[in-house]
């Protein structure tokens, strides 16, 4: 999920608020800064721009040499092809639907499991709490690729290969530790006294959590869920190893599958990629404030 997160928490607007340092002198530095940022922006954004352009070009313009930057006919045919095939829905649209289901359900599961766990770790004196939390975090230390083969073998035993349930379970497993850690920070920020006061007012501990702490945690939950959603949505390695049929496949392997035939319909690939990238951008935009809050968590005392 690295790239998406970096985009979401882009330091651009934040940097504007920091007073310029005097090291290089005011004007000279800002010129240099703007120049470097421009170069960086062009390098970073050009592939995105090219993807968008390709998705709305006609096929002959896609392959035109020299490449056409501005002077081409705009068409939405590729986008139509993403969703509709001759005689019904396209295979890609099924993949997108699968992605929505898998990412949505795994995020919901991770949230439902992770938030109460985070609350418990924050509020109660648990035996060897630090060790437990470290152990939970440690499951995220290794790259997922490392465990693909064992998990593949395990899934084959349990009949989870090529099922959406299999993907949901593995994504949940990866998101729960993350949810616990991020939510624990948010729970720590909500004073435990609210729950104490509610308990003195006649509520049980769980009611106190549900009625008073949970509403205050909603922004944090939203931010955490978006991170989990982006991870599940973008995940490629497990998806390509553990699924094969068109009915089960999520969008990332499906889009990758478009490349590799005798001819590659680059227009379709680009359009599918745009459709794939949009939800993540929209979500990240909606909760951008909390994303920054999540990333800088603990840097500022309440």
């Amino acid at each position, binding site marked *: 999920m690295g790239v998406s997160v970096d985009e979401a928490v882009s330091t651009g607007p934040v940097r504007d608020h920091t007073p310029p340092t005097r090291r290089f002198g005011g004007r000279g530095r800002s010129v240099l800064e703007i120049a470097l940022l421009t170069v960086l922006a062009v390098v970073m954004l050009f592939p995105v721009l090219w993807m968008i352009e390709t998705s709305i070009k006609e096929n002959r313009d896609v392959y035109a040499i020299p490449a056409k930057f501005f002077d081409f006919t705009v068409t939405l045919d590729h986008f139509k092809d993403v969703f509709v095939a001759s005689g019904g829905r396209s295979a890609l649209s099924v993949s997108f639907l699968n992605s929505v289901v898998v990412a949505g359900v795994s995020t919901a599961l991770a949230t439902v499991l992770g938030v109460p766990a985070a609350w418990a770790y924050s509020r109660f*004196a648990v035996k060897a709490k630090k060790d437990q939390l470290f152990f939970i975090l440690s499951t995220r230390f290794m790259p997922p690729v490392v465990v693909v083969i064992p998990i593949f073998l395990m899934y084959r035993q349990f009949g989870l290969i090529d099922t959406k349930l299999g993907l949901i379970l593995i994504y949940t497993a990866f998101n729960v530790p993350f949810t616990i850690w991020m939510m624990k920070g948010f729970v720590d920020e909500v004073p435990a006294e609210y729950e*104490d006061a509610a308990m003195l007012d006649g509520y049980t501990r769980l009611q106190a959590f549900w009625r008073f702490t949970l509403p205050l945690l909603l922004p944090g939950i939203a931010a955490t869920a978006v991170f989990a959603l982006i991870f599940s949505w973008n995940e490629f390695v497990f998806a390509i190893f553990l699924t094969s049929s068109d009915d089960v496949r999520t969008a990332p392997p499906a889009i990758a599958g478009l490349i590799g035939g005798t001819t590659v319909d680059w227009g379709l690939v680009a359009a599918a990629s745009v459709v794939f990238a949009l939800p993540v951008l929209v979500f990240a935009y909606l909760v951008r404030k909390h994303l920054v809050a999540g990333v800088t968590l603990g840097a500022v005392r309440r």
Partner: protein
Amino acid sequence: MAGIEVTALHKRYPDGTVAVEHVDLSIGDGELFVMLGPSGCGKTTTLRAIAGLERQTTGDIHIGDTLVNDLPPAERDIAMVFQFYALYPHLRTRDNLAFPLRAEGLPKAEVRERVDEAARLMRLGPLLNRRPRRLSGGEQQRVALARALVRRPRAFLMDEPLTNLDAELRADMRTEIKHLQGALGTTMVYVTHDQVEAMSLGHRIAILNKGRVEQIGTPLEVYDRPASLFCAAFIGSPPMNLIEVEVADGKLRSQGGLVLTPPPGLPRDRCLVAGVRPEALEVTEPGAERSVPARVVSAEWLGDEIIYVVDHGGQRDVRVRMPPTVRFAADAPVGLRHTGGTPAVYDVSTEELVA
């Protein structure tokens, strides 16, 4: 209203930390009882156990005649005020006050009546329609107090309620709480680490240290005869001078020659320390009557008084409280004279009061 009995309270957390080693308290009906101690001494845990927010590992708690060990907080008929005021952020003052009553299921008319009464007592009229965010710290604490009042509980539990307020407001609220408790006559258990608060508020003070009660007594008892070296060092600002003494010819004699009247029943052949309050000593001109030689190390000019730190027989931290009119320069040779009565005497090895 009811008294509170805490018997052999012990609290050990699952991670092995012992917050309360052994605490016995007998708090009278209508008493304002202060638990005083440094952070980590177990005072807050004891209070939370009384409230039912923590379950003690062993020991009994009675409120009135009821054994409350297994009762949830709501059924103990107590109200608690927290250091962080814990007003529900989404509710206006009026609803914050009404909340515990509605939770009890009281009829609307009575809720309104009780809220108005509490608001009048705490002078909250203009604040009733505001949310906590729009109240100052002092106002929030007044609302929190009112929120405790409306329940008409059998006892109030106060967990460092004034710590977050600035000094001036704190003094005002202190007076207000004392007055309120006196007027209502409700038992109040008040936890603080601030000795001034404890001395000015409490009918009785319990000094806690490392999960044990070091001393229980009225403010004057606690000040005059601290029960242990810990209490002696904790109460008073500056704290009591602890001067090593020997028993000789029926007198207590310090290394520097200061002679004190021994209390009766003093044990022999033990290492003893006399506790002498800074105001029980006097800095004089060198060679004055009944004085022993000393030297001024430094002086703190506090306006209404001067605290002299003097070197007396090698002990360089003897503090003496003097009126601001008596002035000696630093390093000046002076006399040191004991003007108080019989000092408290402690055994160095047990750290406890021996006579």
